[in-house]
């Protein structure tokens, strides 16, 4: 079942990549996806059954506009700091705590943190993430978690929780 999930996903990506479809590429893609599934099936995500849950996919679709909003906000913020003649930055590395358990959830959270206002994830260790912050407001663990992590966590808990 795990291999079938991987086969399905790689076959769909193949079809999108070769789009003017004909029979030859469809058959070739079938074998390529089969080889990929047999070789790398073991190293696929551990909770593969969650990929078939409709409600998790729905919450992921809800997450996308929220993420886009923060992404554009982040860029306007960085643009202001870059163009300001005095360079108003106040950098430092802080430590935050996350409640997410699954590994794929944590990696999505880290990627989101990297693309949002003034933060860049440096390392992850257990349930703590080290974050380089362009404008440090507090170096306390709880306060920093409240500012950075919580706005994504409540959606990602529903997707990966």
């Amino acid at each position, binding site marked *: 079942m795990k291999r079938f999930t991987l086969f399905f996903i790689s076959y769909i*990506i193949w079809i*999108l*990549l070769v*789009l*003017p479809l004909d029979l030859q590429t469809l058959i070739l893609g079938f074998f390529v996806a089969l080889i990929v599934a047999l070789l790398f099936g073991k190293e696929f995500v551990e909770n593969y059954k969650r990929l078939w849950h409709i409600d998790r996919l729905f919450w992921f679709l809800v997450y996308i506009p929220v993420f886009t909003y923060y*992404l*554009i906000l*982040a*860029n306007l913020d*960085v*643009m202001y*700091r*870059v*163009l300001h003649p005095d*360079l108003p*930055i*106040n*950098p*430092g*590395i*802080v*430590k935050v705590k996350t409640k997410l358990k699954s590994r794929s959830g944590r990696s999505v959270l*880290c*990627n989101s943190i*990297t*693309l949002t206002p*003034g*933060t*860049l*994830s*440096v*390392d992850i*260790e257990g349930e703590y993430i*080290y974050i*380089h912050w*362009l404008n*440090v407001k507090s*170096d306390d663990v709880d306060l920093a978690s409240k500012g950075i992590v919580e706005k994504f966590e409540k959606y990602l808990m529903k997707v990966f929780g």
Partner: protein
Amino acid sequence: MNNIIGYIIIGIGVLFNLFGCIGLLRMPDVYCRLQAATKCVTLGICFVLIGVVVIVGFNPLGVKALICMVFILVTSPTGAHALARGAHKSGVKLWKKSVCDKYKDKESK
């Protein structure tokens, strides 16, 4: 009509790219440069590819542009994260006016 809207979107994206590269020049240390450059260039390229989709519509070229956008959105922050970690482990110091460095505290323990 589609052409005009598409070129406006591409223009916004290219401007974001330019600001990201100026950030690469002006920021004082590796981590700040990484922040400014990664964010602005990723969003800039996303805007360029969305503009391509608006101009050409949903033919094979447009679908490939959308797939390329998803790849960039996944790979670019991962690369930035790996680079920040590698820079810190290879011993690059933070800027001299930095406030705190919890990561170094952990490593020296």
